[in-house]
């Protein structure tokens, strides 16, 4: 519409955001919780004079830097890259609204980076108190960057009063903010302990140190689990009603919610029985399983967090198909193809090249308008071609075409044309988590023509068969 749509075959462009985000979040939370782990444990090692533990912590510091400063930082930039490509309008709105939030977060990134490098590269060369202070500077800067970005991501789920008062602070301190900060802080503590366990179980041969790490890191991990639970309850309580309804009605989300509860419970029980009560259990297999369960719970949580916003990218502000909800009424009159910068340009060129005889009839060059009433004068191939354009710009943000992520074709398999058209006209009434139809009646026909083209026939062998139904 306002921007070109990026067509990612099979996966859909927004799913690319999900992939990059989940991968990043798994490292980003460790970047925060790992900072607290290093600062706390280095302090403990200094106080107790445990040189062996300090030596291990330095090794862990290298692992930490390699994972967070390289992979974590670049995938973080990668999210930005991807949202700009896959959700340009939403990104534009977020950046205009929160540019100074992001700029402030960047300042904390620089502090984090400087502190992390000094903490690691000057290990043993700084006075203990200074070294420790720099460790804490890193941890706090990393946590503040978590708080800042959470204000922005939580806004996407529930902007609260911002819709009436579009002010930076109103948007930042949205109803989801506090709960998501609590949950993410808990996530950072829990996930970092799981990474620590995995690293220690692989890197340490000395049982005393493994036991020490297991027992000392169990408390922050258990605290993290509690914070996740509290934050999760608040997150649910302050969800917009439609998001709660999505959770209740979408089959896959039902399963995922169940899965996340089961995985979190497993992690909690394993943490309690293992590192907390029986530190000696910390073998690579146990730590690996614990880490895998934790990562699976986290990834599931992130996916759910993204999915419940449907049909919005920014709740009640920008729809998944990159239009503003207040534009819909106008588009239903003017036409979706006419109303979009790129769709309109496409139609004009397409008609000029493919249907020169119809071009003067459909395109009013004087008023620079597409006469939607003549779109159905196109032959079936032309209708399908323009229906494809409507599909790309109206539907492809959530649906692949024939194969891939939630493909529209197989979803509409065997559906009669009149039902398909009715569904298009009443998209948001048929499924409340879909956007309202934003086109004209001729565009309903165009889209339906394309959907018929990509939908496979009704499967054979289902009773009652087509023959029986026709006989009835």
């Amino acid at each position: 519409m306002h921007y070109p749509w990026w067509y990612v075959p099979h996966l859909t462009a927004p799913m690319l955001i999900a992939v990059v985000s989940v991968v990043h979040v798994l490292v980003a939370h460790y970047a925060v919780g790992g900072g607290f782990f290093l600062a706390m444990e280095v302090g403990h090692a200094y106080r107790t004079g445990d040189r062996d533990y300090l030596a291990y912590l330095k090794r862990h510091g290298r692992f930490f830097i390699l994972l967070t400063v390289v992979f974590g930082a670049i995938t973080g930039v990668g999210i930005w890259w991807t949202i700009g490509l896959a959700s340009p309008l939403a990104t534009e709105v977020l950046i205009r609204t929160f540019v100074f939030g992001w700029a402030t977060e960047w300042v904390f990134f620089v502090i984090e980076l400087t502190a992390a490098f000094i903490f690691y590269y000057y290990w043993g060369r700084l006075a203990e108190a200074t070294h420790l202070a720099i460790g804490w500077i890193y941890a706090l800067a990393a946590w503040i960057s978590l708080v800042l970005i959470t204000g922005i991501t939580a806004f996407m789920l529930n902007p609260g009063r911002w819709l009436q008062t579009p002010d930076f602070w109103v948007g930042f301190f949205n109803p989801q903010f506090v709960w998501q900060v609590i949950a993410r802080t808990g996530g950072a503590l829990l996930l970092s302990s799981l990474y620590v366990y995995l690293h220690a179980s692989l890197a340490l041969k000395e049982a005393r140190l493994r036991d020490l790490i297991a027992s000392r890191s169990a408390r922050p991990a258990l605290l993290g689990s509690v914070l996740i639970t509290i934050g999760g309850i608040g997150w649910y309580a302050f969800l917009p009603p439609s998001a709660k309804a999505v959770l209740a009605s979408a089959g896959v989300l039902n399963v995922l919610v169940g899965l996340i509860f089961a995985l979190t419970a497993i992690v909690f029980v394993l943490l309690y029985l293992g590192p907390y009560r029986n530190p000696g259990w910390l073998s690579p297999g146990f730590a690996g399983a614990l880490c895998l369960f934790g990562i699976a719970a986290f990834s599931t949580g992130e996916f759910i967090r993204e999915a419940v916003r449907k049909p919005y990218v920014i709740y009640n502000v920008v729809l998944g198909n990159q239009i503003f909800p207040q534009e819909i009424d106008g588009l239903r009159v003017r036409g979706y193809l006419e109303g979009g910068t790129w769709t309109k340009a496409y139609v004009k060129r397409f008609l000029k090249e493919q249907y020169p005889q119809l071009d003067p009839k459909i395109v009013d060059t004087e008023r620079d308008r597409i006469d939607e009433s003549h779109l159905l004068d196109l032959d079936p191939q032309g209708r399908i071609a323009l229906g494809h354009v409507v599909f790309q710009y109206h539907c492809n943000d959530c649906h692949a075409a024939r194969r891939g992520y939630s493909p529209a074709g197989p979803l509409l398999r065997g559906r009669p044309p009149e039902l398909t058209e009715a569904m298009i006209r009443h998209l948001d009434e048929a499924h409340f988590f879909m956007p309202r139809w934003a086109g004209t009646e001729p565009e309903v026909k165009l889209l339906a023509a394309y959907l018929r083209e990509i939908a496979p026939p009704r499967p054979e062998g289902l009773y009652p068969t087509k023959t029986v139904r026709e006989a009835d």
Partner: protein
Amino acid sequence: MDPQSLIDATRFPAVPAPFWFIQFFKVLGFTLHAVPMNLWYAGVVLAMVLRAAGPEHGKRFAGRLMAQMPVVVAYGVNLGIVPLLFVQVAYFKVFYPATILTAWFWFAIVVLLIPAYYGVYAYAWGLRDGGRGMTPRKRVGGWLAAVLFVALGLLFANGFSLMTNVEAWPDLWWSTNVGGAALGTATNAGDPSLWPRWLMMFGLALTTTAAWVVVDAAWFGRSESPEYQRWAPEFAWKLYTAGLAWFAVAGTWYVLGTWSADVWNVMVRGPLIVLTVLTAVAPGLPWLLLYRARRSETGPSRPAASLIGLAQFGVLGINAVSRQIVQNVELLPHLDVAGQRTEVQWSPMAMFLLTFVAGLGLIAWMIGRVVAASGGTTVQD
């Protein structure tokens, strides 16, 4: 198809900061980013060549640079956030379409940066203990990083040159669309300004690397031999001369071969000719300072090296200012970036500025602790 019809004209949202503020931080951020970016863009490939076939001190410098490179890359990526943020604030109407048309190449920047960065780390580890840990795999990591960083420069130039080459959008889009959506496989290779811009930046990167040879020797390489200290400014001057020649050739190609009449009118026929001339001759100052530094028997002094570093920072800054003005002029027929409505977010802006100043203070304190712990000198790990 009229290219103008592809720029959204249905709405004109307000920009949250004064235009000068956005320009200032975009240019400042880019200049700060350019320092480490120049070091990896030309420095890594230079270091790999020197390690493979350079003189003894050349190998030594290359080892030093590659050992520093993990930190350099981290800051380069980090400082790149600032211009990227502010370009999206004011140039969103052209930035998003250009990057979406070239989406896979733009996305590849993130994907390729990861192995490039790990390649740098692998090579840097191989250099530990006098290079005894160097294995063929780690060496491959270094070469991979060198090649990828040069390629990444081209990918960046591809996206950003297309941002101002609006005239090319219709055909690029049409040739790569699927049902009107962009497949993201377009390239701006047909833009005559792409290649000289990419090459010009490489020449500039060579000069920055040359300046770094001296800054590094004076500030971080005091433990190096007197021979190395004498070699450093001599080599730096030669490298700077080569970079300058490269920059001059590519820059001449860029200015004479690709500037439109509009750009020419603003940058050459108006009062801004002073800026254009300054941009062209600015590298002469660090070049002269390097020429002078060669005379020292004991290697570059710290004040002299600092002056060279500052002069080179000025070269990068003045280039960024000129580039910014050219970018705005190139866009003017399509988008008046300076004429956008503003609704300033005063209190968030104050929060940022206060945090920025406080953050700089905190960073200065941390570096001060490091310097104090190192007995007045910073030490290489």
